[in-house]
C-alpha cells in the first residue's frame, strides 16, 4: 500500500506523535496542580466499575442552577459550557462565586457543562454539572470505600470532601478526605480492623 521507503519514517513519526500526546496530557494534568488553586468540595460516594480503568468511587454532586434573562432562547437545546469561579466559606469549603457564559480573564475558573431550559418567554434556567465525577481506588478496597463513606455520610459530624485543583477551566482531583484524613489511610485502617 505505502511505498516501502516511507514506512520506517512513518513508523517513527507515529511513535513520536503517540509519545508527544501522552507527555502533553501528563504535562497539562501536572500543570493544574502546580499553577491552579485548591478547593474543597463536599462529596458523597458510591462504588461502580469501569472496564478499562478499574473501580472508582462515584462522586454524585447536585447540579448548579444558573438563570439568564435576556435573549436566552438561543441557548436552549444543545449542551452548553459555563465558567464558574469559586470562593471559600467559613468552614473552608468551595462555594460558587460567579458563573458566566465567557471564561473570566483573571481568576481561576472551572468549565462546567449542562443544559438551559425555558421557563417563560424571557427567562431560562440552566443546570450545570461538576466535571469531577470519579475517584479511582484499589479494586479490593472499593467495596469498603462505599461502606465507609455510607457510614460517614450518616454521621453529620463527619465531613467528607474532595480536594480539587482548578486552573483555567481544567481540574485535577487530588484526593478524597474524611475529616482531613486521606481516604486511602482510612481504608487501610478499616482493613486492618477487619482482619483483627
Amino acid at each position, binding site marked *: *500500500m*505505502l511505498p516501502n521507503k516511507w*514506512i*520506517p519514517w*512513518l*513508523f517513527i*513519526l*507515529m*511513535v513520536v*506523535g*503517540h*509519545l508527544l*500526546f*501522552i507527555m502533553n*496530557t*501528563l504535562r497539562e*494534568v501536572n500543570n493544574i496542580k502546580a499553577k491552579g488553586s485548591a478547593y474543597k468540595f463536599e462529596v458523597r460516594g458510591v462504588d461502580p466499575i*469501569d*472496564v*478499562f*480503568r*478499574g*473501580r*472508582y468511587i462515584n462522586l454524585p454532586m447536585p447540579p448548579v442552577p444558573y438563570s439568564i434573562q435576556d435573549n436566552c432562547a438561543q441557548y436552549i437545546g*444543545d*449542551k452548553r459550557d459555563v465558567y464558574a469561579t469559586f470562593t471559600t466559606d467559613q468552614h473552608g469549603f468551595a462555594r460558587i462565586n460567579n458563573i458566566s457564559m465567557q471564561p473570566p480573564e483573571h481568576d481561576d475558573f472551572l468549565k462546567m457543562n449542562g443544559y438551559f431550559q425555558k421557563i417563560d418567554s424571557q427567562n431560562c434556567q440552566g443546570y450545570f454539572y461538576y*466535571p*469531577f*465525577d*470519579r*475517584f*479511582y*481506588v*484499589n*479494586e479490593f*478496597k472499593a467495596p469498603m470505600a462505599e461502606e465507609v463513606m455510607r457510614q460517614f455520610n450518616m454521621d453529620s459530624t463527619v465531613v467528607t470532601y474532595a480536594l480539587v485543583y482548578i486552573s483555567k477551566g481544567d481540574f*485535577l*482531583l487530588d484526593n478524597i478526605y474524611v475529616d482531613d484524613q486521606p481516604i*486511602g489511610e482510612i481504608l487501610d485502617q478499616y482493613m486492618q480492623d477487619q482482619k483483627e
Partner: protein
Amino acid sequence: MSIKDDIQTLLSDGIIDQNTAHRLARYYSIKNQKSSKRIPILIAVLGGLFIGLGIILILAHNWDQISKTTKTVLAILPLILGYLLCGFALIRRSDDEAWRESTSMFLVLAFGACLALIGQIYHLPSNMGLFYLTWSIATLPLIYIMRSAAASVLYISGITLYVIYAGYSSGEDNLPASYWALLAAVIPYYHHKLKTSVSSYWTIMLHWWIALSMTVALGSCARSDGDWLYPGYLALFGIFSIMGDLMYTQNRRVLENAYRTIGAIGSVIVLLMLGYDWFWNDWTHSRFDHLLSLDWSVELWTTIIVSLIYFSILVYARSTRPTDRAYSGWVYASCLGVFLLGIWTPWAQLAINLILILYGLKTIFRGLHADDFGVFNFGLIIIISTVLCRFFDGNLPFAYRGLLFLILGVCFVVANYFMIKRRNSYAAE
C-alpha cells in the same frame, strides 16, 4: 482416507489420468499450505489480544502501594515494548503476517492501557466517547504502516464504540459526524484488501465490521425527528444488499457475504416495524411540509444523502450487471412510493405488508431456483414473521389464530419436504 489416497484410487480405477492426478495433487498441496499458514497467524493474533487485555486488567486493579510517578512509568512501559516489537516486526519480519498482526494488536491494546491508566492515576472524568476517539486515532496509522488487518478491526470497533457513546448517550449532544470521516480513513486499506485478498478471512471480517458499524452509526443522529431514519435505514440496507451482489458474483455462504446477509435481515426488520400502525399514525402532512420547507432536520438530511448513494449504486449495479443481480436492492425503491402514499392515505401499512410478502415469495423462489435451503427458509421466515406480527397486532379470535398457526406449520413442513425431494431427484440424476 487422505486426499492423496483418494487421488491414487481415482487414478488406479481409471477415472482420471496421470496428468489430472498430478494437477489435483498440486492444487491440494498449495491449498493445504495456505490453510496451514492461518493457524500460526490465528495463534499469534489471539496471543497478542490476550496479553494486551491481560495488561489492561492488571493495571485496572489499581496498585495503590505504588507512587503516581511509578504508575505512570508502568503505564508507558507496555507501550514502549509494543513499539520495539512492532519495529522489530517491520525491520526483520515484514513479510511475516503473524508477526505484524500480533505485534500491532499488542501495541493497540498497550496504547489503550496507557490511556486508561493515566485516566485512573489522575482521576480524569468519564468521557468514554473521547477515550475511544483518542484510542482509535492513535490506532489508524498502524493499519497502514504495519499492514495490519487486526488493527483495522480494532479501529472499526473503536470508532463504533465512540459513535455509541458520543451519539446515543444522552449526556453528549454533539453529533458524531466525525465518525464518517474516521470510517472513510480506513476505506483505502479495505479497498486494498478487496483487491488483493477478497476471499481471506480478514476481508470477510472487515465486511462484517464495516456493515455492522455503519448500521449502528446511522441511528446515532436520531434526535427529535427520528422517524425520518426508517427510510434512511431501508436505503442503507438496500446499499448493503446491492454491494453484496456486486462484490461476489457467485453465491457465497451467509457468513462470507456480510453485506447481503445484513442487508436482507435489516430490510426485513425495518419493514416489520413499519408494518405496525404506530409509525403511520405520526406520518402525516407535516412530513411533506417539512420536506418542502427545505429546513431539514439532521435525520432528514441523513436519509436524503443515504438515499442518493443508494440510487447511485442501484443505477451502477443495473448498468454493470443488468441480469437478476441486486435482487433485494429493490425493497427501498418500492418503499419510497409507500412513504409518499402514507402521507395522504391509510393504505401505506397494508402496502408495506404486501411488500414483505412479495419479498418473502421472491426469496423463496430464489432459494428454489438456486437449490439453496438457507435462502429458501429465509423467505419462509419473512412470510411467517409478517403473518405473526400482524397476528399479534390485530384482535383475531383464538380459534382463527390457532388455525393460522396450523396452516403456517403445515406449509413450512410441506415446502421443505418438496425441496428435499427435488434435491434428491437431482442427486439421483
